């Protein structure tokens, strides 16, 4: 595993995402209200490009007629067949233990630290004034 600065924080506002390539892997980086998450850009079902999916919430029901809507903006649906994944963990809703999109740790780091290393800033130019989204691959 090595750390890679892939974007400035300002580049991925809350609710948005960016597709990055790190060590040959296509990774979709999402900003959920200031928290960042990275998911492999291939659905484990048939390979749909996850970065093009919609972020939505969970609709659940304890019994017919009762509905609950929760976790708004935290559920990523594959743009092809609509499978639901938890953007925080990559786990699928229907089979969380068995079906998962690979997730990559993401952190925010100030430019100062990125410049000092041990980060490898290979996809964006880094300055000390900015904050960066760093993916661990």
């Amino acid at each position, binding site marked *: 595993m090595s750390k890679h600065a892939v974007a400035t924080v300002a580049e991925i506002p809350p609710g948005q995402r960016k597709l990055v390539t790190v060590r040959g892997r296509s990774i979709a980086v999402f900003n959920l209200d200031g928290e960042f998450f990275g998911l492999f850009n291939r659905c484990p079902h048939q*390979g*749909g490009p996850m970065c*093009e999916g*919609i972020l939505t919430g969970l609709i659940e029901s304890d019994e017919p007629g009762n509905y609950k809507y929760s976790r708004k903006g935290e559920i990523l649906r594959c743009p*092809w*067949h*609509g499978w639901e994944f938890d953007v925080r963990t990559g786990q699928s809703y229907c089979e969380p233990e068995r079906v998962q999109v690979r997730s990559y740790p993401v952190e925010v780091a100030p430019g100062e630290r990125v410049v000092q290393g041990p980060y490898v800033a290979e996809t964006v130019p880094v300055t000390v004034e900015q904050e960066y989204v760093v993916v661990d691959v």
Partner: protein
Amino acid sequence: MNAPVDVLERRADAEAKLGIIDCDIHPSMKSPRALDPYLSARWRKHLTEYGKFNCGIYADRGTYPRFSPATSRRDAWPPGGGSPGSDVPFMREQLLDAYNIAYGVLEPLLGGNTSRNLDEAAALCSAMNDWQAHDFVEPEPRLRASILVPQDDPEASVKEIEKRAGDWRFAQIQLGSKTSEPLGRRRYWPIFAAAQANNLSIGLHIGGTQNSAPSAGGWPQFYIEDHHVLVHSMQSQAASLILEGVFETFPNLKICLIEGGFAWAPSLGWRLDAHWAKMRDEVPQVKRPPSEYMRTNLWFATQPVEEPENPEDLRQVFEWIGWDRMVYSSDYPHWDFDDPKHAFRFKMTEQEERMLFRDNALNVYSFQ
């Protein structure tokens, strides 16, 4: 007309890498006026002033987006604008080149054949046939058109088939799995006669008219239910065609069942054979066990592929139906698209792959 030389060259190249044949690609119109150049002034005026007198088609019936906008993959919207399936260069990039597709059969689901006004249906089908040929096949000859026909007017249907027969741009005749009466009824036989005489197969795609509820159990309440009951219409049509004796009268008729599932086919064959063993004399025109017609006259397009918990179970289903009956379809750009590389989760031999992805389809379609 002869196929352009570059298609033949491309085909030779593609064969080296197993060029795939995709039996189900959905084209859409760039604008609501896309058919205008192919409609006479009389029908342009009629459609402007009265609109289409529909009996509700599959793709137009829902009052909500069908799971995904335009029923499509969210990544299938052309970057240059227009709806999924309307832009040939983007279709080329996202589907034909990406998967090395040697031929793709267009299956428009635009409701030309669902107008209750039969003359309007004939005009729309004919216009949509010209539109496919000019707007899709000519710019991209790997694509081939379906001959759309107003099936409730067999005479007009035959006229349209004969107009298109021998034209390399057309690969098959399309019918929908929902019809005014079961397709085996003799009112439809002139269409089968014309298909057989012109060596054109019939692609029976789910959808069609909605004169009755989609399910024998009535109207579904949910899309998930509506989406599933489509397979019932396909089973009913298969049974009707066999039991009315269509394949005895037209032994060379080829019918490809598209998007209606296939795991039900072995069970349908077993049940019909068991009934036939007892009640054969009610339908003496059915000279062989019904499942035998399924093995000589029907083909099954795979999308949306069955997804059993144990992937090897799918191999068993293929074996029950017969490997030679199975043809690949993607359903591009619709949301339930099957990726040829990932949809089938069991290991195939090279020969099985060739049959499913290409050779079987070459036995069905008239690619010229």
